[in-house]
C-alpha cells in the first residue's frame, strides 16, 4: 500500500476544501443574491470545469502557471520556485477544478433561504455580514456540508488535472489516482485493487455521511413559511 500517496491525497483534499470554503462562499453568496444582468456569465465560468476535459483545464492552468506567464513569473519572484509540478500548484489547479462542486450546492442553499428572513434581519439593523453569519449560513448548513464533501471527494478522485499540472512526483504530487494508474501500468493489479477499494470505500462513506447529515439538518430546522 502506497501510504505516502494516500496521505498526500487527503492533505491535498483538505487544503483544497479549506481554500474553497474561503473562496467559494463569497462567490456562492454573490451568485445567489446579485441582480447583475451578466451574472450568467460568471455562472458559466464557475461551471466550466464540470464539462471541460480535465486535460484541457490542466493544460491551461499549466500554461498560466508556467515561467512564460506573468502569474508564473510573479510567483517565482516571490518564492524562488515555479508553480508547476509542486504541491501548491496542484492545490491551485484543484481549487479551480472543484470550484463548481463547492459553489453550486452552497449557492442553491443560499437561494433557498426565505428572502423575508434576510429582509427582517436588515430591518432589525444587522449588517450584511451579520445577516450572512447569523441567518443565511445556519439555514444553509446542508448546502455548505454538501459543497464541502463533494469538493473533497472530487479532489480525491481527480486524475487528469493532477497529471497535467503535478506530474507524478512521489510525496509531492503523486496522488492515489496516479498511483493506481502506475500500478496498472506495471501490471500490479493487486496493488491497484487495494488502493482503488480504499478510495471507493472512503468516497462511499463520506457521501453516505453527507446524505444522512443533510436529512437530519432539515428535520432539525424546518422552514416555517
Amino acid at each position, binding site marked *: 500500500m502506497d501510504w505516502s500517496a494516500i496521505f498526500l491525497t487527503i492533505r491535498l483534499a483538505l487544503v483544497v476544501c479549506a481554500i474553497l470554503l474561503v473562496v467559494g462562499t463569497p462567490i456562492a453568496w454573490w451568485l445567489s443574491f446579485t441582480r447583475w444582468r451578466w451574472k450568467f456569465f460568471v455562472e458559466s465560468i464557475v461551471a466550466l470545469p464540470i464539462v471541460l476535459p480535465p486535460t484541457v483545464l490542466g493544460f491551461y492552468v499549466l500554461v498560466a502557471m508556467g515561467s512564460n506567464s506573468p502569474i508564473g513569473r510573479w510567483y517565482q519572484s516571490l518564492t524562488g520556485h515555479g508553480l508547476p509540478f509542486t504541491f501548491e500548484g496542484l492545490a491551485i489547479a484543484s481549487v479551480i477544478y472543484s470550484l463548481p462542486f463547492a459553489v453550486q450546492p452552497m449557492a442553491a442553499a443560499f437561494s433557498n433561504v426565505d428572502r423575508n428572513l434576510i429582509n427582517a434581519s436588515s*430591518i432589525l439593523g444587522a449588517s450584511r455580514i451579520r445577516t450572512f453569519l447569523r441567518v443565511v449560513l445556519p439555514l444553509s448548513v446542508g448546502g455548505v456540508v454538501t459543497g464541502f464533501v463533494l469538493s473533497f471527494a472530487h479532489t480525491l478522485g481527480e486524475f487528469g488535472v493532477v497529471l497535467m499540472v503535478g506530474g507524478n512526483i512521489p510525496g509531492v504530487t503523486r496522488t492515489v489516482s496516479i498511483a493506481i494508474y502506475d500500478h496498472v501500468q506495471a501490471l500490479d493489479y493487486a496493488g491497484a485493487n487495494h488502493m482503488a477499494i480504499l478510495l471507493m470505500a472512503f468516497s462511499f462513506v463520506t457521501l453516505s455521511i453527507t446524505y444522512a447529515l443533510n436529512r437530519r439538518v432539515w428535520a432539525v430546522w424546518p422552514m*416555517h413559511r
Partner: protein
Amino acid sequence: MASGNSAIRDGRLSVRIAYRTSNSFTLEAEFEAPAGFTMILGPSGGGKTTILNCIAGLARPDAGRIALGARVMFDSAARIDMPVAERRLGYVFQNLALFPHLTVAQNVQYGIAKIPAEERRARMMTMLESFRIAHLIARKPGEISGGERQRVALARSIVTNPAAILLDEPLIALDNATRSKILDDLRAWNAAHEIPILYVTHSPAEAFALGERVLVLDGGRILAQGTAQEVLATPRHETIAQVVGFENVFDATVRSIAETQGTMLCQLDGSTTRLEVPLGHAETGARVRIAIRAGDIIVAGERPHGLSARNSFPGRVESMRREGVRVVVMIDAEGATFEVHLTPGAIDALRIEAGKEVWLVIKTYSCNLVEPSVRS
C-alpha cells in the same frame, strides 16, 4: 408598560411616492401618519405592502420623499436612499419571518445585539413579559402556536425601540379573541411611546375598529384618507364603498338593550329613525357605528306586514341613477339618507321615482357594527 429605554421620537411619518412596479401597475401615494394607528385599507393587489416596502427601504420608488420627522430616509431629488439597516423601523411581515433556527430569546434579542448583554436581557424580558410570552424564551418558532409567534414577531420589532412600526396584516391568521388581546397589548405599549404605526389590512371591520386614521388604497392610489368618520363620510365613491364594503354608514346612539333578544335599539344621528341591530359590547347611551350594504335593504311600495325583518320605516325617494344593470336609489328617512341598490325590474314594478313615498325594510343582521367596542 416600561420601555426599558427612551424611544427616540422622530415625529410624524410623511410619505410621497411614485413607483411603477410593472407596466400595468403604478403606485402613487402621498400621506402623513402621526403617532398612533394609521390603517391602510384596501383589496389585495392594491399596493398596500408595496407602500410598506418603500418605507422600509426594501423597494425603491422611482420618485418621491419619505421622512420621519426631520430624518429623511428617501428623497429622489436629493439622491438620498438610506440603507434598510439604518432606518430604525419595526416591520412585521405577513409571514412574520421569525428566524426558525433561533430561540424566542435569540429572535427577540436579534435587533438589540449591540447593547451590553445585561441590559439586553433585561429589555428582552420586559418586552416578553408585556407580550405575555416570557415562558416561551427557550422555544423555537416551530414549537409555539400561531398566536405566540405573532407576539414574538411584534416583540422582536418593538424591543428595538423603532421610530415607526409597519405591520402587514400581522394578525390575519388569528381568531378574533387572540387578535384583540394582542392589539390591546400593542395599544397599551404605544400609549407610552407614541410613534406612528402603519397597519395594513383588507378587513374594513378591523380598520375602523382600530384606527384613529384610515387610508383607503386601491389600484395604487389613495381614494380617501382621514379619520374613520371622514373616510366613511367621503362622497359615496363607488370604489370606496366596495373596498370598505358598506355603502351606508351611520353614527348612532344606543337607546335600549334587549339582552335576551341579543339585540339593541340605536337611534341614528340627525334622524328620528331607530334601528334594531345585533347586540354589541355597548351600554345604553354608548356611541356606535352601523354599516349596511346597499344591496341588503328592501324597498316596499306600502307598509309591509308579516315580515321577520325587525326594521321597517317610511322614507322618501330623493334621487335615482342608473349604474350598469342596477339602479342606485337615495332614500331619505327622517333625516338619514340610505343608499339602496335595486334592479331595473324592481324599479318598474314599484314605479319608483323621485319624490315617491316608500318603506324601507332592513333585517337586524344586515346591520353591522363596524366598531365592535366603544373605545373612545
